[in-house]
């Protein structure tokens, strides 16, 4: 199964509530995916800075020295905010790649996301517990995507949880299963992409990242995916300023969307959206099969 929620705000007045609204939506989808949960939150970037979200299996040992370690390597000041097993490092944008390479070289550290606006938090456990550990409800932002996982294609681990981020400010969540991910992974590796898991969704994320690198826009990348990705999927994709949705041609994985003047919302089921402001008068519809939807600000 798996549950997906997403919220793309059009009205800046709702931005302080983004985390709270998404948390409630995520918890409602617990029945669809109780084994792990994750959330990507995008906020307006501060000029010249970037963020690296890092996860550690030994946060007590790793995080106190994290700022110093990165500063020594990149020669610039950084700030670190620790939330449970994750730490968000804010650093000069020009040094993002160097810092990411450094973190990836450490055995106990994993990069969850990197970019100007994105932060990703994900862990094993019930969605309500995962959201509470990272205090997601207090986060502000412009758009966000959440996922509750019922694992089918790979192990229940932190790295197997969604969202998957395979490019700067990009993330993807998935309900379904891909049948050609092994072949596609080999092809993408040949073309220079790298992978951290055996998970099928990571392949879809890397596929979209690769297409974006080839200078397709988000809509075009998802359109290409309809030809190249085989299997069952409803995908919700985030970029720094965009939010996209696509379902496979058979469309057996559920999806409901709602739009008002204030937001565009996505839920695997309508009940994920019932407490959003103005839902009673929102335009509510099911995205059509094999049709790409995307919004950009």
């Amino acid at each position, binding site marked *: 199964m798996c549950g997906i929620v997403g919220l793309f705000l059009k009205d800046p007045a709702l931005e302080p509530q983004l985390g709270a609204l998404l948390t409630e939506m995520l918890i409602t989808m617990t029945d669809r995916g109780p084994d792990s949960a994750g959330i990507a939150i995008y906020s307006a970037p501060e000029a010249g800075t970037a963020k690296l979200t890092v996860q550690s299996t030994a946060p007590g040992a790793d995080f106190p020295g994290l700022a110093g370690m990165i500063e020594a390597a990149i020669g610039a000041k950084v700030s670190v905010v620790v939330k449970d097993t994750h730490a968000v490092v804010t650093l000069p944008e020009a040094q993002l790649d160097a810092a990411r390479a450094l973190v990836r070289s450490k055995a106990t550290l994993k990069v969850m996301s990197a970019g100007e606006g994105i932060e990703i938090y994900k862990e094993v456990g019930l969605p309500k517990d995962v959201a509470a550990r990272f205090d997601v409800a207090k986060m502000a932002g412009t758009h966000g995507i959440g996922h509750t996982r019922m694992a089918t294609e790979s192990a229940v681990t932190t790295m197997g949880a969604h969202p998957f981020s395979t490019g700067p400010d990009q993330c993807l969540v998935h309900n379904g299963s891909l049948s050609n991910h092994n072949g596609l992974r080999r092809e993408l590796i040949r073309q220079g992409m790298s992978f951290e898991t055996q998970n099928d969704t990571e392949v879809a994320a890397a596929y979209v990242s690769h297409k974006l690198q080839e200078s397709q826009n988000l809509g075009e990348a998802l359109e290409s995916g309809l030809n190249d990705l085989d299997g069952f999927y409803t995908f919700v994709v985030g970029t720094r300023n965009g939010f996209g949705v696509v379902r496979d041609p*058979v*469309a057996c994985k*559920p999806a*409901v969307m709602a739009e008002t003047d204030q937001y565009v919302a996505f839920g695997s089921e309508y*009940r994920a959206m*019932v407490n959003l402001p103005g839902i009673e008068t929102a335009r509510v519809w099911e995205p059509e*099969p094999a049709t790409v939807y995307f919004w950009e600000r």
Partner: protein
Amino acid sequence: MQSFDLTAQGLRALNSTLHGLKEQTNETVWEIVNPKGAHAIAVGLDAPIDVTVRGSTGYYCAGMNKQATVRIKGSAGPGVAENMMSGTVIIDGDASQYAGATGRGGLLVVKGNAASRCGISMKGIDIVVHGNIGHMSCFMAQSGNMVVLGDAGDALGDSLYEARLFVRGSVKSLGADCIEKEMRPEHLELLADLLKRGEADHLAKPEEFKRYGSARKLYNFNVDNASAY
């Protein structure tokens, strides 16, 4: 009228209350408020009661219905009226995938659009959709009638048995062994009755529809295909 607040009282209390009603009950009119997209609302009813759901429902609303009339004043999630036996289910909004699947009797009315696989494997149910229906609708439909005032998606009536399909708008594509058939007087008469019962007689006339049915080449044994078995 009996009113039931689903958020306050819970799904199990609702369904066990409705299941406890006998055929001769005097509590014949029910209203369910705050459905909030919950699953399995008013499933398995078996009494001649009238239930109105004030809002949108989740999976399987009014599934396995017998005798009851269930009205949904919103949209319905996947599998609404699945395996209905008798009675009536009327949805003011849209219906998600596989509405009326495997239904054996009764009437399902969708005043908005129905998504994919509407009436899949239907076995006697009548379905009237005021809007459009999605792909693979009436797949392996065995008997009953499907009336669509709008358009039908891809592969309508694939591997069809003896269900009758009436579509007023366009059909994106017909499934295997589904063909257009002649509309005879008895079909116009049947359609007039279905439109009336489906609260659609003010929206469309029987003459505006085309009839589709099985070419009967797929499910009948054909000696020319013997080598394939």
